[in-house]
């Protein structure tokens, strides 16, 4: 755990914690309900509304806090889905090999060639862009690279001496997976989970920015979309407290996960693993 003491990792942990707290405790912490006009439109920051209000008079701070929910849900949901599918496929391909491996990797190669954002845009526009749909879509987008990475690690572990030794002692496949494979894959899974989460936040925000989000939900990307749709937004100082903080919120969420991943990297390659 000494790896997590590096300043970058700590910053990552801090930011992600902030995100989780905001998402979970939104009803408690937010000063106002996010969808209720609680002040004059375009009010500049004041004690009542520390980050001002938007064009409908909704409190920006509350919208910032509530927006964490969408981002966190999509991030964690998509990462979990990607790892569940990618993990199973990757491990199976690595352990079983042969036809299963070849078929799986060809499918992965094909899926990897498809550009992410355009496909997401197309499917979200056609199928509707609720939080659940977006989460599932992003998760499905990221399982191929996950499968690749896990398969590669599985293959290298399969050839390690201690796996062969265990086989020599009479170990069957279930034991090998349980005892040796899963514990070795653990750090890798953690790092990749965080990487997918980081990307998912960005993609959800991008989709919402393009207008592909649930219009009744509070989403940071959607706020920016609405802001930039206002004619003349750049010429009022409203840009400063409507777009800027929201953009920073997205950035900090992404950065939190990225830094967390950076902090976890040393755990992935501890000194004593270098022998391989």
């Amino acid at each position, binding site marked *: 755990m000494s790896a997590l003491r590096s300043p970058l990792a700590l910053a990552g942990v801090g930011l992600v914690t902030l995100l989780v707290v905001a998402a979970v405790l939104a009803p408690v912490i937010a000063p106002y309900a996010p969808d209720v006009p609680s002040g004059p439109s375009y009010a500049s920051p004041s004690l009542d509304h520390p980050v001002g209000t938007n064009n409908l008079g909704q409190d920006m701070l509350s919208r910032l806090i509530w927006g964490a929910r969408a981002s966190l849900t999509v991030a964690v949901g998509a990462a979990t889905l990607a790892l569940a599918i990618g993990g199973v496929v990757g491990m199976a391909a690595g352990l079983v090999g042969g036809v299963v491996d070849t078929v799986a990797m060809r499918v992965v190669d094909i899926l990897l060639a498809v550009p992410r954002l355009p496909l997401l845009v197309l499917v979200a526009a056609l199928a509707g862009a609720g939080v659940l749909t977006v989460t599932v879509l992003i998760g499905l987008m990221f399982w191929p690279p996950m499968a690749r990475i896990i398969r590669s690690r599985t293959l290298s572990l399969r050839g390690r001496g201690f796996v*062969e030794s265990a086989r*020599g002692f*009479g170990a069957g496949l279930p034991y090998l997976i349980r005892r040796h494979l899963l514990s070795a894959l653990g750090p890798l899974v953690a790092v990749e989970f965080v990487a997918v989460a980081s990307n998912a936040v960005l993609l959800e925000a991008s989709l919402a920015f393009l207008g592909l989000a649930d219009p009744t939900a509070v989403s940071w990307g959607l706020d920016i979309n609405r802001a930039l749709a206002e004619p003349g937004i750049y010429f009022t100082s409203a840009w400063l407290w409507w777009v800027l903080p929201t953009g920073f919120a997205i950035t900090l969420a992404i950065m939190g996960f990225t830094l967390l991943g950076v902090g976890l990297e040393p755990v992935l390659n501890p000194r*004593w693993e270098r*022998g391989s």
Partner: protein
Amino acid sequence: MPPGCPFNPRCPQAEDICREQRVSLEPSRARLVACHFGGLKTLLDARDVGKTFRRGRRRMQALDAVSFALRQGESVGVVGPSGSGKSTLARILTGHLATDTGEVTLEGRPLARSWGRAARAQRVRIQLVMQDPWDALSPRLTVEELVREPLDLAGGGGDGGDSAGSVAAALASVGLPASGNFLGVRSHELSGGQLQRIALARAVIIESELLVADEPTSMLDASEQARLMVALRERQTELGLGLVLISHGIALVRKATEGGET
């Protein structure tokens, strides 16, 4: 007089029949022997073993019609320069690699390569001590977990007290401490020599018949080499194990074995 052969409690190759039936003096292999098996059993029999590795269009023949036989308690040395297929032979003999031609027989039965339970039970009888102890032992497990693993896999785990005793005994038999401190140590904190002795302890803690040591000393310094060879010879003598010692150093092999194959 109890039934059966009088040497049965001490004999390393005793089976049920030895406990039940008396045996008379018979000629066998140019001697008179009183044994159900006519003397020492042939443990391992490799005949015309060949292995070719294919990579795309390139082929590399690692082994070409290798044959030798090993009897109970015998030591055989395999010497050759690097790349002569010694490790390939080691892995074939222990069932980790399949032969292309020829056959390997262990205790009269062909060596199986499948994942099935019977095949696994057979493979336990012949153990491999690998060249690289850091690779052969998982960096995540403690010394205790490492030495216990073969015991647990053989199903002999039983209750904790039983296996703890076996672990301590196995460690002591290779000259390593069995203290609580040492048991909790992980592989990256130990030297190559200590790790190889742990690998040896793992190989002998279960009832194996035969040990194949693939260049066990090449990654160790001189004093560790000597200590490992001493431990190896001691275990072999006491348990009556067969030994196939593979090395590129002919002096080492000469010191440790009787038979020869180059």
